[in-house]
């Protein structure tokens, strides 16, 4: 059998089966199934949304855990002068101790400006400034 005969034969393949196909019925069946498709895709979309929410929640949890772990570790490792005071909390410190802490944080390592006036004493700080001070001590 040569190539031409093979091609002729191939052109006849499947012709009988294709003739038996009820094209109009197939067209209507396809349209009907397509009409039902949005319901499936809504379900799929909802499933995907919930999956993404789970992923996002996991990422937030991991980041949060990492931030807490870092915060717990840093005061001991990086702030030996103020670490003890930070652990004790601002309310438990004497005025002298707080003054000492203020001097420590008054000269930030990265050169950034302090969040309170440079000549202020602890008594001059407002509640938010004190909270900021405590946060900076805790890392």
């Amino acid at each position, binding site marked *: 059998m040569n190539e031409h005969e093979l091609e002729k034969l191939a052109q006849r393949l499947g012709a009988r089966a294709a003739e038996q196909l009820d094209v109009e019925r197939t067209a209507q069946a396809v349209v009907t199934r*397509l009409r039902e498709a949005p319901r499936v895709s809504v379900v799929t979309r909802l499933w995907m949304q919930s999956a993404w929410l789970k992923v996002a929640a996991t990422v937030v949890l991991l980041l949060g855990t990492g931030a807490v772990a870092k915060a717990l570790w840093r005061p001991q490792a990086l702030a030996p002068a103020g670490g003890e005071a930070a652990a004790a909390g601002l309310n438990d410190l004497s005025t002298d101790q707080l003054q000492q802490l203020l001097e420590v944080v008054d000269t930030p390592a990265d050169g950034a400006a302090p969040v309170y006036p440079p000549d202020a004493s602890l008594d001059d700080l407002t509640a938010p400034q004190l909270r900021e001070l405590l946060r900076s001590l805790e890392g």
Partner: protein
Amino acid sequence: MPHAEPVAAVPTDAALIAAWQGGDEQAAAELVRRHARALARFLASAGAPDGDLDDLVQETFIRAFRGVDRFRGQCRFRTWLLTIGGNVLKDAARRARRAKVVPLHEELRATDGDPHERAVAGEAEGRLLAGLGRLSRMQREVFLLRAQQGLAYEEIAAALGTSPGAARVHYHHAVKRLKEYLA
């Protein structure tokens, strides 16, 4: 002078696809009417059991319409449809194998098949069908797209994601192996 009756323009496939994307269900139905038989021939030649042909044709169109946004006109709509049909057939064969419905010969139907079918189709067609079942999927699809659907290598290559040269090589390998089998 009599006025010529306006001839209703036959919408192109591209126009029907755009209409379907705009929500026109009848455009989808028209595309099915245009291409269902060619698709059925391709699937039957590639090994689809006659009893499953209607389901496979439907499934191919459903996948095509749902994924029509991915059709960028790289080839004709029919060619793209036939390649989707190849994927649908492969998936159906995999499911059937898992369910152990098809006991013989890789993903294709039993090629020593239905005696009635073979009597009708003729011995030579039956043997060609069996021979096609022995080819790799790429060889089989290239052969059918070329020999049965009459497509150019460029068109086949665009549809199957290969080069025209590679399509030509697959075709000649297929022809060589089929000739050996049918000798």
